[in-house]
């Protein structure tokens, strides 16, 4: 019960706090709209206007990913800068219950990107918003957000030992955008990159959203997104415990 209370309070606190951050709003609203706009013009210039809704959904999930990645990169770093990391680690609450609400909040902020990108596409580019499986679409959104949030926890847990996690998260934005097929179908990438994409929740999340919106079988993709989320949670908890202990042992916890 205490764990649920900590999670709920943390999620509420971080969601409100991030909503007040101009930079987060920029990341989660402006960036996906811009990426979507670039993709729309590219598809139009290439004579493929039929793929615009496909691109809009990809750009929306990119927004969730971008926000999650930035948040997971900053999760440890911000605590270091604020001098609160040691306090949080030494408190009796398991550290994972402190980190999880933050990474979930960063992916939940991505809901702004979803709404902004789809509205932008509808209003500016006239992309019709019709859903083949509306119920599946409504379930695929929280499933994708949860899957990405838990992936953020996994990243954040491995960033404990790395002093420049923000730089690493900057670097990871493009490769994941590429291998998860958010805007370019995975089938157009080299075969060796496919298994990497399969291990990442955004691949299944966007596939589920597209199948729900454009027609197909979204439920297996939604199931895979959630299953990967559970795996990320297990790995994240293990890594967090291991790396936290290693950082305490080496006295590098608060080093910036």
């Amino acid at each position, binding site marked *: 019960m205490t764990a649920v209370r900590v999670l709920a309070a943390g999620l509420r606190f971080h969601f409100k706090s991030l909503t007040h951050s101009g930079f987060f709003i920029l990341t989660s609203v402006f960036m996906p709209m811009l990426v979507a706009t670039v993709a729309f013009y590219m598809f139009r210039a290439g004579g493929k206007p039929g793929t615009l809704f496909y691109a809009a959904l990809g750009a929306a999930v990119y927004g969730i990913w971008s926000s999650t990645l930035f948040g997971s990169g900053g999760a440890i770093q911000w605590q270091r800068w604020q001098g609160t990391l040691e306090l949080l680690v030494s408190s009796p609450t398991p550290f994972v219950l402190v980190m999880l609400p933050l990474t979930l909040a960063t992916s939940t902020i991505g809901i702004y990107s979803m709404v902004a990108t789809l509205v932008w596409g509808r209003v500016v580019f006239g992309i019709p918003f019709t859903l083949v499986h509306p119920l599946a679409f409504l379930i695929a959104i929280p499933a994708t957000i949860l899957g990405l949030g838990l992936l953020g926890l996994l990243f954040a847990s491995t960033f404990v030992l790395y002093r420049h996690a923000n730089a690493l998260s900057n670097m990871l934005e493009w490769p994941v955008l590429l291998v998860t097929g958010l*805007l370019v179908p995975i089938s157009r990438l080299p075969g060796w990159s496919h298994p990497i994409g399969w291990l990442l929740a955004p691949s299944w999340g966007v596939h589920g959203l597209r199948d729900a919106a454009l027609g197909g079988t979204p439920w297996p993709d939604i199931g895979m997104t959630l299953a990967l989320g559970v795996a990320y949670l297990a790995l994240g908890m293990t890594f967090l415990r291991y790396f936290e202990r290693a950082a305490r042992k080496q006295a590098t916890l608060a080093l910036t």
Partner: protein
Amino acid sequence: MTAFVRIFFVGGLIAYRGLFNWIRPSMYIPTMLIGPIFQILFFTKLGAYAGVENPTFFVVGNAIQASAMSAVFAGTMTIANERPYQTLAPLLATPANRFAVFMGRALPVLASGLVVSAWGFAMSRLLISGFDPPLSSIPAMAVVVLVSVSSCTAFGLTIGSVGLRARDVFMSANVCYYLMWLLCGVNIPLHTLPGWMQQIGKLMPLTHGIAAGREIAAGASLASVSGLVWTELLVGLGWGTLAFGLVSLFEHEGRRRASLESY
């Protein structure tokens, strides 16, 4: 004159080292060298899927635009960070020539931008099939990249000079940086954009440089794209003049209102 040169070169380098003392290879390499390679790969793949242009179009556009990460963000920080570091008032209390003080800092930024761009071209040559410019194009391409990065650095300094007054200039720097993807013909042929976007794009740095770079990669000589290169240079001079004008204006206003470092 000796003092001007000393402040411009030595002072610029020292100021850069002071303002960017937090940069480490573990930050620079992932952000400035590895990230842009994936940006180039992503847009090349997206272009192929969208059926628009060829790999050279995307490599040249993105390799030159990658330099903007240094030019825009570092250019902004070289001026704007004096306020949060609380060194602006002592700096402006000196009688040093303002042009030498602020514009000298642009040289290390420019050098970093050139490294990022050259790295982008070199790695693209190794990784992307279909990007195979003639070796003879390298000197001309180097000139185009130098002019483009200079122009973009001047743009970054302009944003930074606004930071002498504005509360949060880094948000603007981010918006400007990312808008370059859309407006400067980096990934979209400029003529396919709406007219008003094309007009804005023509006033932005990089637009003409990227166009010149693409022609050179296709085998054109430097002389044949000289019009584009001169235009890029003029655009950069315009932004540089604006940057220096804004620095002078905000210094004067800051002194008058005693608000140099207040927010």
